[in-house]
């Protein structure tokens, strides 16, 4: 299970890192565009060739460092995992000249935004070694509370201490480039940074988790609640008209992709094609005037919005579950132990419910874990149809905007849920089937 997690994330990581037009290329493009617009390209060029808007090697190298592309892929993967330290800040500075590092933006002050800063000094010792020193923290302007003091001038500071910045490269006699690094990755609970939303991926996903989870879990529970009794009925009445007709319906349900069914439902219930007025809302997760609604209004609004997506979620595994239940029960009913149970003189109800059905649920238990994964992970189709801004929609949009942070974060969560699902299935297996014991 754990090797699989690493293998999968590594595979997707390598794919993402090796495809063109990633964040790095986008950044290069942006800088080029900015240069072109400001006309800098033209002025600096002596000839009329287009090469004038090419970036200099120095800038490219800086950018590459910023995106961590100066390291081999395996190192980048380990950094992403949080095993190796990640270079977070990067600075080229002169030896002996202190600069201010912004640690945190505190907020809007009276006139300007105020941030927490400290001085950093690259200091050359007598034997030629370079050490990087930092001062105490302080604000650049007066902050509202007395919690922080204003950072004094660099020359007034006497207590310099060693800090977590390290020397990256010596550029020449007087200049060095230094980096601040920190262990920050999946293992430390950091899923990455979204370049488009400019926010932590963990937070973005967490904010939307309740939507996807609500739809997924509701659809999941409902489909089990419907499919198991239906499967049992079909098995008991095998060959009857009920069986044939319900089989037909189930297979039609299987033949329509859930999202296409969703579009069909939208056509019926949310446009004026069939009914005179739209019955259900066509887009969104909640009514737009959610805040103003009363409790009952909220419930009704939520139900109206969630109804069609939930039906679509159900449809996804409906046919498979029903037929699995039916076939499994049929197989069990033809077993010898059922014959024995009947021979003992037990009632049909008891034989079916206590003997056959319990054993027939075993194959379904294997599906439980897998289904959880499917419901959470492959929801972008349905979310796209109904315009719901859940995890699926977030990641779907991330592909378009090449937001690698979100993509990798989603892969982590998706793989994790899937593997967790497998574990749950195994546990359910043991719970239902008394013959299986993990020892």
């Amino acid at each position, binding site marked *: 299970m754990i090797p699989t997690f690493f293998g999968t994330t590594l595979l997707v990581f390598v794919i993402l890192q090796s495809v063109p037009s990633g964040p790095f290329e986008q950044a290069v493009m942006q800088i080029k565009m900015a240069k072109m617009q400001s006309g800098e390209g033209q002025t600096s060029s002596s000839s009329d060739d287009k090469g004038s808007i090419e970036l200099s090697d120095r800038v490219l190298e800086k950018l590459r460092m910023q995106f961590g592309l100066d390291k081999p892929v395996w190192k980048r993967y380990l950094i992403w995992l949080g095993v190796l330290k990640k270079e977070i800040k990067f600075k080229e500075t002169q030896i002996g000249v202190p600069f201010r590092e912004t640690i945190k933006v505190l907020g809007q002050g009276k006139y300007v935004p105020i941030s927490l800063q400290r001085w950093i000094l690259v200091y050359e010792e007598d034997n030629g070694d370079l050490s990087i020193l930092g001062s105490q923290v302080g604000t650049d302007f007066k902050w509202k509370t007395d919690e922080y003091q204003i950072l004094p001038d660099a020359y007034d500071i006497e207590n310099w201490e060693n800090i977590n910045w390290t020397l990256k490269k010596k550029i020449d006699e007087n200049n060095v480039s230094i980096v601040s690094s920190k262990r920050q990755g999946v293992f430390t609970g950091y899923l990455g940074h979204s370049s488009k939303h400019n926010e932590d991926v963990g937070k973005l996903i967490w904010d939307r988790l309740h939507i996807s989870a609500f739809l997924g879990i509701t659809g999941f529970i409902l489909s089990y609640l419907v499919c198991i009794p239906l499967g049992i009925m079909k098995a008991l009445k095998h060959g009857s008209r009920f069986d044939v007709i319900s089989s037909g319906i189930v297979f039609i349900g299987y*033949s329509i992709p859930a999202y296409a069914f969703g579009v069909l439902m939208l056509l019926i219930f949310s*446009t004026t094609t069939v009914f005179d007025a739209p019955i259900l809302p066509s887009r969104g997760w909640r009514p737009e005037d959610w805040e103003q609604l009363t409790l009952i209004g909220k419930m009704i609004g939520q139900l109206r919005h969630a109804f069609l997506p939930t039906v679509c979620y159900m449809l996804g595994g409906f046919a498979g579950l029903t037929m699995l239940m039916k076939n499994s029960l049929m197989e069990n009913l033809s077993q010898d132990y059922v014959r024995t149970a009947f021979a003992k003189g037990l009632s049909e109800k008891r034989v079916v419910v206590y003997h056959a059905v319990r054993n027939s649920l075993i194959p379904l238990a294997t599906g439980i874990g897998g289904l959880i994964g499917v419901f959470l992970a492959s929801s972008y189709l349905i979310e796209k149809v109904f315009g719901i801004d859940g995890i699926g929609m977030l990641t779907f949009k991330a592909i378009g905007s090449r937001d690698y942070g979100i993509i990798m974060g989603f892969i982590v969560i998706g793989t994790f849920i899937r593997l967790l699902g497998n574990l749950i299935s195994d546990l359910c297996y043991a719970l239902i089937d008394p013959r299986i014991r993990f020892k």
Partner: protein
Amino acid sequence: MNIQSESILQKRIKRFKSIKRGYYSLLALGFLYMLALLGPLWINNKPLILKYDDKYYFPAIVDLLDFIPGINYPLYESKTFDQNSSRIEVDFRKLKKEINKQNNGNFILMPIYPYHPHEDLKDQLDEEYDDLNNNNVYDFGEPFIDENNSGGWSENHPPTLPAGFKGRHLLGTDNTGRDVFVRIVDGYKISITFAIIVTILSYIIGIAIGAFLGYYAGKIDLFGVRLMEVFSAIPFLFTLMILASFMQPSVFLLATLSVFLKGWIGITYYIRGEFFREKAKDYVSAAVSMGTSPFNVMFKHILPNSLTPIITWAPFAIIGDIFTLVSLDFLGYGLKPPTSSWGNLLKQAAENLDNWHMLIFPVIVLTITIFMITFISEAIREAFDPKIYSRLR
């Protein structure tokens, strides 16, 4: 009396044929696929035969063979055919009208349904009229065909509603003025072609890898199974979208990607399992002891004996592949418009929900196709792996 004994395969095929709905579904789908493949001959805006100024042209046939490298559909310029039009390419439907009017030895045979899946008919949806003064505009008094029985000539704008068999566009046109029926037929061709390519490729790869793992077992097998676990844990469609988003997707490219990411895994598992079971049997030991090479043991002895899961798995694989392409196109990361794949049709319909005919027909055709493949799969399973449930009550 000569009694010919039947092989197991013959028996199974006979049993399959005896399950009527599966057998006829297979025949129907196969026949329709042939028709769809020959589409350029019966749904096309190019004539089958054209005789103009004592020269013969066969544009539709060239169009049909266009997929062969080396054959390129030539440009038929409008001035070659004395057509005064702003477009460079000749409009054959118009040419047909002109030829019929002139009656000077020229001859044209258009396909039965003279529209092309990618053809934009925006300005050709108005009711047909006889342009007596050749000014390309309808003038009052010119004869016309009253399609909507309004009594007067009427202009139409896309999307137009289904016209049925009497009108020009059987299932109407979509919002950019393309014929829905033609696009559905073309979409059928694309879907099935994609599914067949994926299935064949994943069978070749899956059988090779599965046979190797199952036959040699041991550490190679352990490694292979780990690899399969890794691949089966990736979110398939999601990764496929990422890969497709920076490429120029074609049917073959998408098929290869989908085989690489998922297609080979299922069949590899099956074959590996079958090989594990089969290689312990006596006939394998006999073959090995006779000095048969491992390759021959694997593919001449064991493989023919482990075909059952391969064949029963095929319809499910095909259904999955069709769904893959539809989803991918629906999300906009598959074949690019104006390709008339079903996913593109659904996407277009979802964006134009007010036009019911754009949605209903593709969904119905897709559903029926999948439904029929389900019948086939049921029949195959029944023929190859019959299960009889005996019950007391």
